[in-house]
C-alpha cells in the first residue's frame, strides 16, 4: 500500500503502547521520543505521493509529501515535542494519550492527499483534543468541552458533506486547489472556516482554550487552527474573499483582548488575530504571500506556545491566570518573565525576533499587490498585537501592582521547554534563512532593510508610548473580574432564551386554545342536552289533543292553498 511508513502511525502506536509503561519518567520519555521519530521520518521522506490505496472503489492517499505539507508536518512535530517537554510532570494517562492522538491526527491531516482521509484526521483532532479540556474535571470544563466538541464535530460533518458533493460533481476526492462555486466547495470552505475561527465562527477558540488544563492549552494552541490554515492554503489559495475575512480577523479580536481579564483568553484572542494575517496571505495567493503564511504559521506556533507556556507556568504556581489577581511576579519568577517577554517581542514582530521576519512577508505583499486598506488594517493590527500581547500580558502578570504573590519559579522541565522555544524564536529572527529554505516557494526577500527596521521600531515604540501615556493618565482600562459578551452570547444566551420564550408562548396559546375549545364543546353539549335530553323539548310526549289540533290546522291550510 505504501512504500513509506506514515508518520501519524508512530503517534498511534505510541498511544497504544503508552498505557502499558510505568507512569513515571519512562512514560514521559516515550512521549518525547514519539515526535522526534515522527519528525525524522518527515524530514527523510522525498516529495511525492507515497500512500496510495483504493478503498471501496475510491482512491485514497495518506501520504502526499510536498514542501507545504512538510513544513507543517515538521512544525507540528516540533510543537508536540516542546509541549510534551513542558508537560513532563503530567501523570494523567488520558491527557498523555489524547496529546499523542491529537498531534498524530494533525500530522496525518497535513499529509492527507484526498478529502476522505482529510476528514478522518479532521475528526481525529476534534475528538482527541476535547479530552484536554475535560481533563480539568470540573463542571464548567465539561460544558465548555461539550460546546467545543459540538462545533468541531460539526466542522467535520460539513467537510464530509462537502466532500461527497464534490465527488459527485467532479468524480474525484483529490485534495487540491479548488475554486468556490459549487455547493460542495462552499461547504468545504465553511468547514475549514470553522476550524480557522473565521469571524462569527470564532468563539469556540476563546471559549475553550482558557478552560483546558495548564499543559492542555499549550497543546491546543498549536494544532487545530494551524491545520485549518494549512487546509485553506492547500485548497483555496488566491480566493480574494479570504483577504477581507483575514483582515476582519486581525481587527476585532484586539479590542476584546484589551478588555479581557483572563490572560489565557487574551492570548486566545491574539491567536485569532494572528490567524488573520495568515488568512490574508492565503487570500492574496502569490508565492510571496503563501510563503509568508507558511513562515508565519511556523513562527506563530512557537511564540504562541511560549506565551501560553509562560502564562501556564504562572497558573501552575498561583492557581490563577487573571490579570486582576496577578502582578509583581518578576521578583520570584524572573526566568518565566524573560521567556514571556521573548514570546511577546516575537509576536509583536520586533527586529531580531521571529515575527519580524515572517509577518512582513504578508504585509509587504499586501502593499505590493495594491490592497492599501487591508495593508492599513494589518498595520493597525500589528500595533494592536504589541499593545495587548506584547505589553499587556507581561505587564499585568509580572509587573503592574504588587499582588503580594511570591510563587516559586516554574519547574525545571517547564523552564527547559520555554528556554528552547525562546531560543528558537530568537534564532529564527536573527537567522531566518533555514526557515526560508523550508518554505513552499523560492524566497527572494530581505527582511532587514533600514526602512523596514526603522519603521517597525517607530510603530512599536510609539504603541508602547501610547500604552505608557494611557497608563499614567489612568485612561487605560483596569483589569476587572468580568466576562465580556462576544458572539457566543447568541448561542449561549439569546437562542436558548428565544427558544424558552417561544416554548412558553406556544404552550400558553395551546392551553388557551384547548380551554376555549373545551368551553365551546361544553356549551354545545349542554345545549343539546337541554333540547334533546330527558327534560328537553324534543323528548317531551305531546298530548293527542294538540296533535289533532295541529293536523286540523295543516289540513285547513292545504285546503285554502288548493282552493286559490
Amino acid at each position, binding site marked *: 500500500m505504501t512504500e513509506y511508513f506514515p508518520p501519524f502511525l508512530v503517534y498511534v502506536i505510541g498511544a497504544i503502547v503508552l498505557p502499558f509503561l510505568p507512569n513515571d519518567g519512562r512514560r514521559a520519555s516515550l512521549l518525547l521520543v514519539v515526535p522526534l521519530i515522527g519528525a525524522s521520518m518527515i524530514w527523510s521522506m522525498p516529495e511525492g505521493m507515497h500512500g496510495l490505496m483504493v478503498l471501496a472503489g475510491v482512491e485514497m492517499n495518506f501520504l502526499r509529501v510536498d514542501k507545504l505539507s512538510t513544513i507543517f508536518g515538521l512544525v507540528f512535530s516540533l510543537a508536540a515535542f516542546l509541549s510534551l517537554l513542558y508537560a513532563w510532570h503530567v501523570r494523567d494517562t488520558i491527557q498523555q494519550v489524547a496529546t499523542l492522538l491529537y498531534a498524530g491526527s494533525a500530522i496525518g491531516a497535513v499529509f492527507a492527499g484526498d478529502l476522505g482521509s482529510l476528514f478522518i484526521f479532521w475528526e481525529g483532532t476534534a475528538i482527541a483534543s476535547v479530552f484536554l479540556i475535560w481533563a480539568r474535571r470540573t463542571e464548567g470544563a465539561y460544558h465548555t468541552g461539550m460546546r467545543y466538541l459540538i462545533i468541531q464535530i460539526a466542522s467535520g460533518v460539513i467537510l464530509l458533506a462537502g466532500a461527497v458533493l464534490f465527488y459527485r460533481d467532479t468524480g474525484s476526492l483529490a485534495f487540491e486547489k479548488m475554486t468556490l462555486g459549487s455547493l460542495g466547495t462552499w461547504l468545504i470552505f465553511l468547514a475549514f472556516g470553522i476550524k480557522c475561527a473565521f469571524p462569527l465562527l470564532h468563539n469556540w477558540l476563546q471559549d475553550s482554550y482558557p478552560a483546558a488544563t495548564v499543559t492542555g492549552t499549550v497543546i491546543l494552541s498549536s494544532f487545530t487552527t494551524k491545520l485549518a490554515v494549512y487546509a485553506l492554503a492547500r485548497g483555496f489559495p488566491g480566493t480574494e474573499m479570504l483577504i477581507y475575512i483575514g483582515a476582519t480577523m486581525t481587527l476585532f479580536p484586539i479590542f476584546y483582548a484589551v478588555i479581557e481579564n483572563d490572560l489565557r483568553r487574551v492570548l486566545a484572542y491574539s491567536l485569532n488575530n494572528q490567524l488573520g494575517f495568515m488568512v490574508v496571505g492565503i487570500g492574496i495567493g502569490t508565492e510571496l504571500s503563501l510563503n509568508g503564511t507558511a513562515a508565519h504559521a511556523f513562527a506563530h506556533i512557537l511564540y504562541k506556545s511560549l506565551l501560553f507556556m509562560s502564562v501556564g507556568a504562572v*497558573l501552575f504556581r498561583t492557581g490563577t491566570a487573571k490579570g486582576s489577581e496577578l502582578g509583581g511576579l518578576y521578583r520570584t519568577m524572573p526566568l518565566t518573565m524573560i521567556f514571556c517577554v521573548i514570546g511577546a517581542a516575537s509576536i509583536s514582530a520586533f527586529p531580531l525576533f521571529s515575527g519580524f521576519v515572517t509577518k512582513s512577508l504578508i504585509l509587504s505583499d499586501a502593499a505590493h499587490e495594491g490592497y492599501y486598506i487591508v495593508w492599513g488594517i494589518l498595520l493597525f493590527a500589528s500595533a494592536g498585537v504589541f499593545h495587548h500581547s506584547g505589553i499587556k500580558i507581561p505587564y499585568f502578570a509580572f509587573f503592574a501592582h504588587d499582588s503580594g*504573590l511570591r*510563587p516559586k519559579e516554574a519547574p525545571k522541565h517547564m523552564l527547559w521547554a520555554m528556554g528552547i522555544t525562546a531560543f528558537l524564536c530568537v534564532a529564527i529572527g536573527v537567522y531566518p534563512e533555514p526557515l526560508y529554505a523550508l518554505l513552499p516557494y523560492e524566497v527572494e526577500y530581505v527582511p532587514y532593510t533600514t526602512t523596514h527596521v526603522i519603521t517597525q521600531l517607530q510603530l512599536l515604540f510609539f504603541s508602547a508610548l501610547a500604552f505608557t501615556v494611557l497608563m499614567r493618565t489612568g*485612561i487605560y482600562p483596569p483589569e476587572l473580574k468580568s466576562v465580556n459578551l462576544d458572539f457566543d452570547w447568541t448561542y449561549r444566551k439569546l437562542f436558548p432564551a428565544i427558544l424558552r420564550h417561544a416554548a412558553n408562548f406556544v404552550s400558553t396559546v395551546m392551553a388557551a386554545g384547548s380551554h376555549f375549545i373545551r368551553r365551546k364543546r361544553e356549551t354545545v353539549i349542554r345545549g343539546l342536552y337541554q333540547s334533546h335530553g330527558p327534560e328537553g323539548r324534543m323528548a317531551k310526549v305531546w298530548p293527542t289533543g294538540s296533535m289533532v289540533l295541529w293536523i286540523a290546522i295543516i289540513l285547513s291550510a292545504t285546503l285554502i292553498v288548493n282552493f286559490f
Partner: protein
Amino acid sequence: MARKAEDSTKDYPALGRKLLWLDNMKNVNRIVYGLYGLCAVLFLADFFYKKKTYVAIENFPGFYALYGFVMCAALVICARGMRIFLMRDEKYYAPKDVESEPFPESDMERETVHD
C-alpha cells in the same frame, strides 16, 4: 498565599533580587523617560535616511510613529467604551463556564519561594 509579613527577599532567586531595583519608582521613571527619548530619536530618524516605500502615505514623515500612537490610543479608548455594553459579572455564564470556578488544585503545584 498572601504576602507574608516576614517577606524576605533572601528567598528570591538571584535574578529576581537583581530586578528589585524596579521596585523603586525612580527607576521606573527613568525607564519611561528613556522610552520618551527613544521615541523622539526614532521620529527624527525619518529625516535622515531614504525611505523605500510602496504606499504614498508612508512618505509622510513619522507616519509609522503617528499611526502607531494614534491607533493604539483609539484602540484602548474604543475598547474601554465597549465595556459599557459588553461587560458582565464573572458568574454570568456559571455554572456552564470555567470563569468563576477555582482552578483545580490537582493541576498545579502551588508553591511559594518561602516554602
